[in-house]
């Protein structure tokens, strides 16, 4: 399968997005290799979430392209992009509140396990699906909450469930939007371990504010400021980068100490 020049998991070429007159993303180039853990950081309003929404198909780019495994996916719908092996989580918890935890996970499994729009299978009878869902529940440590309605879980539990739904389909590119936002220090540590565990051997792209998490998790970091990537490098190099220091990181690192 693997050719000599395996295409990048994700590649952005001169990607632009405007809302009305406001140009939020101004020509972003980025390549994320297969199996890499890539973090995107930047000040508030830099366009991190917009960039996420462009890659995952929620927004259509104004100009430029998004490539997934070397295939142009610009302008495709979220479900089409998801079917090509990309799954994402959301900054604001985005689960199915009136369904149980187990059912939430199962929803994430059905398409990828080939059931699609089937009306000739009974879901409860599909042992393969149930077993896989139970495994994921175990992975995210929520077996005991299996039959609770997702809407009544605690915030941290909902965030973990969000990750569970995201990875359930077995996508090989996982994009997480601020997975530790609003969490306490201990919850954050737990979450980082969880992310590391469930994204093993996968490509991970994460937007994060917590610099501790970023430097802990990422192989490479891109710094997004005012819709432009001003640096993409290893954590060490980014930390020492003069431009990054001035534009953003100086103040962010101070917060960390």
């Amino acid at each position, binding site marked *: 399968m693997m050719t000599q020049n395996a295409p990048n998991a994700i590649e952005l070429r001169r990607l632009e997005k405007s809302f009305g007159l406001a140009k939020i993303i101004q020509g972003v180039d980025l390549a994320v290799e297969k199996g890499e853990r890539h973090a995107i950081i930047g000040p508030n309003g830099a366009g991190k979430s917009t960039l996420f929404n462009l890659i*995952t198909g*929620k927004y259509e780019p104004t100009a430029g392209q998004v490539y997934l495994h070397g295939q142009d996916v610009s302008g495709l*719908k*979220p*479900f089409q992009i*998801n*079917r090509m092996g990309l*799954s*994402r989580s*959301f900054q604001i918890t*985005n*689960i*199915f*509140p*009136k*369904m149980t935890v187990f*059912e939430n996970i*199962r*929803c*994430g499994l*059905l*398409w*990828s*396990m*080939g*059931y*699609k*729009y*089937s*009306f*000739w*299978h*009974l*879901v*409860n*009878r*599909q*042992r*393969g*699906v149930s077993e896989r869902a139970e495994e994921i529940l175990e992975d995210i440590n929520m077996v005991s909450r299996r039959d609770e309605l997702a809407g009544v879980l605690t915030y941290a539990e909902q965030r973990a469930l969000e990750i569970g*739904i995201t990875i359930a*389909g077995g996508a090989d590119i996982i994009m997480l939007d601020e997975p530790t936002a609003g969490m306490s220090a201990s919850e954050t540590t737990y979450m980082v371990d969880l992310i590391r565990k469930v994204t093993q051997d996968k490509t991970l792209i994460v937007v994060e504010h917590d610099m501790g998490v970023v430097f802990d998790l990422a192989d490479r970091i891109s710094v997004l400021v005012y819709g432009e990537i001003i640096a993409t490098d290893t954590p060490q190099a980014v930390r020492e980068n003069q431009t990054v220091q001035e534009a953003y990181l100086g103040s962010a690192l101070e917060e960390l100490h």
Partner: protein
Amino acid sequence: MSEQNTSMAKSSASAQPLVPIKSALPWLAAIAFLLFLPVVFPSGAALTIMNQMAMTIIFALAYNMLLGQAGMLSFGHAVYMGLGGFFCMHLLNQVEYNELYLPLPLLPVFGGLFGLFFAFLIGSFSTRRAGTVFAMISLGVGELIAACSIIIVVFFGGEEGVSGDRTMGPEVFGFDFASQQEVYYLTAIWLILAALGMYLFSRTPIGRIANAVRDNEERAEFLGYSQRNVRWISFCASGFFCGIAGALFAINFEILTEENLNLATSGSILLITFLGGVGFFIGPVIGAVVFTLLQTVLSLYTEIWQLYLGILFVLTVMFFPAGLTGLLAMHLRPWKLGKIGLLANPYAKMLAPALVLVGSGVALMEILFHARHASLGEEEMNLFGITFNSQDWLPTIVVVAIGAGAFYLVRLLAPQVKEAWDMANHAEGQ
């Protein structure tokens, strides 16, 4: 890779017993009940009402596949039942005049297919959006087809509608379906088949994903599902079962008119489904039974029964959005905790004043209505067995006084009920 998973899932499915006894039990009970019913109520009028109920149940369940399961509010759903019915009526006429070979019990299959066809066609543009836009398009399409029924006389028969004769087909096991009883059993069998079909549909992957799209359409899109396709498929499935109900209507009444397509019919199925409760599979069933009974009984006794239904509906939306079934389901927790007994006493105490309060409200409305609309020389009216002159002030004053007394008692007893309710819902050690 996904192919492999599917086959794996299939092979593992066969390892389980075919039907677990526990989940088959309610269905067996329902079948026994339906078999038994005509023995208790053998009269023609009762059979007609029961057939009416059965059709309404199928229609309401099919409607709830949209409203409850997929979160789609339709104001024009009579169209799919009606069109299914009209096509079946024409099929019956083909059987009668052109010797088409079609046993009557199979007619609902064709009704379903016609419903499915139109749902597919109209759904292709109406399901692109959910919520308000879908609701408005369904209204527009419903009005369009209802209006067409007056223009396209060849198909819809104009104002007289289309009629036919169900008995002209081949006999099936010696039945020619001339008697009400035979039609009842035919309807009952289709009721069970359709209800089971819809129940099973809700447990398929598409049925579960319809729930997911209802709860959070954006998230479902990021799990590989096109929200539009999920809605479209749900819509088609609903259209299919509506068509079955339409075919049964054709068989039962042997006539279809514009009334089967119009906004009033579409509206009443929304009312029925919502009253019953959209959150539960059984909800529309309860709604259909209660509504049909209410309609039959109330319309016998009062001219303003639709006003009462309107009030009941608005109060339900405001105070019990989970409907009658939701009201019953609220008591499941006290029941499981073994504390349902705590509620018996306060409920019993509340019953009399609450009934008097409702009764005096009804009396007031009836008196005012009579006073306003009775023709000259007919000032006498009869209410709850008492005859009096509606133009006098005295009855109104008496009714208001009784109502005020009952209201006071209800207010007085309310805290007790509330307290008992809290107690009954409180698990030990929490």
